[in-house]
């Protein structure tokens, strides 16, 4: 049994993701839930790093961990007078139904995923150069993403306008 460093890292990340994913959705305290989510996101970033997608990992850290989680924490604090209010106890039936649905879904998905003969792994290590990322975002030929880039900027604009419209007091 020869476990490489990569494997150790992976299993550590997998354990963190698995554990905290479940804790995120089961903990009774909302703020903890957000914190656990943060751990999951960190671990996800870790996976990206492990896959040599450092740029992706960085984005994950900044946008998710840095941006979204803060947003969550603020809104949790904003909406709860007692910041750490316990979540209401659930009816067992509800939990059971959710669990069954989730487990069934996971079961089916995993069954199909694992049964599927994915082609041979063509894993090649090597960092994705940021320049290539930049070029791809500004290009119009195949596998270049200028148009989506523009579209997501419009999407962001729209969401900003919409979000402000809803969130502002008037």
């Amino acid at each position, binding site marked *: 049994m020869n*476990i490489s460093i*990569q*494997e150790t890292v*992976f299993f550590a990340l997998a354990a963190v*993701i*698995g554990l905290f*994913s*479940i804790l*995120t*959705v089961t903990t009774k305290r*909302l703020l903890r839930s*957000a914190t656990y989510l943060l751990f*999951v*996101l960190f671990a*996800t970033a870790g*996976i990206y790093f492990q896959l040599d*997608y450092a740029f*992706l990992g960085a*984005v994950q850290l900044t*946008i*998710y961990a840095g941006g*979204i989680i803060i*947003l*969550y924490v603020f*809104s949790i604090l904003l*909406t709860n007078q007692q910041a750490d209010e316990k*979540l*209401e106890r*659930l009816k067992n039936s*509800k*939990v059971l139904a*959710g*669990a069954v*649905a*989730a487990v069934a*879904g*996971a079961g089916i*998905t*995993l069954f199909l995923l*694992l049964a599927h003969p*994915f082609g041979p*792994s*063509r*894993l090649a*290590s090597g960092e994705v150069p940021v320049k*290539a*990322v930049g070029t*791809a975002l500004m290009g119009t030929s195949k*596998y270049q*993403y200028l148009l*989506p880039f523009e579209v*997501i900027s419009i*999407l*962001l604009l729209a*969401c900003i306008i*919409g*979000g402000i419209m*809803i*969130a502002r*007091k008037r």
Partner: protein
Amino acid sequence: MEGLHLEYYLVVSAIMFFAGVYGFITRRNLLAVLISIELILNSVDINFALFNRFLFPGQLEGFFFTLFAIGVSACEAAVAIAIIINIYRNIRNIQVKNLQQLKD
């Protein structure tokens, strides 16, 4: 990374996905529901990156999809939180059970 198969990662992402699903279905607080959704989206992001890296490293399609998806999920979170906060302002409560005026 020879010892690590694609499937390992896929299992992780699937667990994350369905943990999110479970959370979505069972959580009582809208924000908690939203947090669960982040898990779902995140697991999808992992999937894209994985497939790209393991199976189709030639092009960066999955990579970019992940990139854009992260942006989109930020948008979604922002708008959803805005709406939730609006609800909070209206009824001082963001429990899911309060969203049952409309039914039948």
